[in-house]
């Protein structure tokens, strides 16, 4: 789609994944405030991606599956807050594990978005 937003999102996911694994390994839970700042930045990036992706979809001539594409964009935005809500109630390492699942889900959605977009490129 647009690399300038996909690459930072994947970068933030990667940092978050490593961070959660370190927190789980060191039994640091609940996660620090700094970690939630990272999630906040990721959220903002995903909202930007939702807007950019929607505009790009409206303008493109490619045979992109529009409904699926938008569904992935929307899911991506929702995964982080829902994951954080699930994690905050469970203040053990399993709660941090939920954040790991959420970050991996966002990353997986990025690859799906990219493959949906690259059809007919």
């Amino acid at each position, binding site marked *: 789609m647009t690399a300038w937003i996909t690459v930072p999102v994947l970068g933030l996911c990667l940092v978050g994944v490593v961070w959660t694994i370190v927190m789980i390994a060191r039994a640091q839970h609940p996660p620090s405030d700094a970690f939630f700042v990272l999630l906040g930045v990721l959220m903002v990036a995903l909202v930007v991606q939702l807007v950019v992706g929607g505009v790009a979809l409206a303008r493109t001539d490619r045979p992109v599956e529009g409904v699926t594409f938008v569904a992935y964009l929307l899911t991506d935005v929702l995964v982080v807050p829902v994951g954080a809500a699930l994690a905050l109630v*469970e203040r053990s390492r399993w709660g941090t*594990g939920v954040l790991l699942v959420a970050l991996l889900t966002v990353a997986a959605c990025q690859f799906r978005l990219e493959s949906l977009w690259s059809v007919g490129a």
Partner: protein
Amino acid sequence: MRSPGERTTDAPVSPLASGPGRILVALYGVFAVAATGRSLVQLGLEAGNAPLAYSLSLLAAVLYLVATCCLLLGSEAARRTALVAVCIELVGVLVVGVLTYVEPQLFPDKTVWSHFGQGYGYLPLVLPFLGLAWLLRNGRNQGSPPPGE
């Protein structure tokens, strides 16, 4: 493994959704959304193409939703309902997994369970085993709650 006393939950949380169960809720939740989305798009846009595959996508969606909700509810009835859903899920992923290799012409379009969930990192194959283990273990501990903790 006992859940350690480090958990400081104020709200009443379903025993099936706490500790390792939280991860299962997250995973089942992701697959509930993924399968529901997939089946709605498939049935809404191209229902005639592959009725069997699309019906299976819908079945998978319903099973994942039921399992997620039952884990969050956490009662004994919910645990049994989840057990049934997870067993059907296990049979589904195994049968569809085998059929997509043996009789690929039955599946002109993909389902969540195609090729044992290959498109989803084989998680659809792993998930029912994790679910079964968790639900059965909680069933055994049900009769004897840890005293005064």
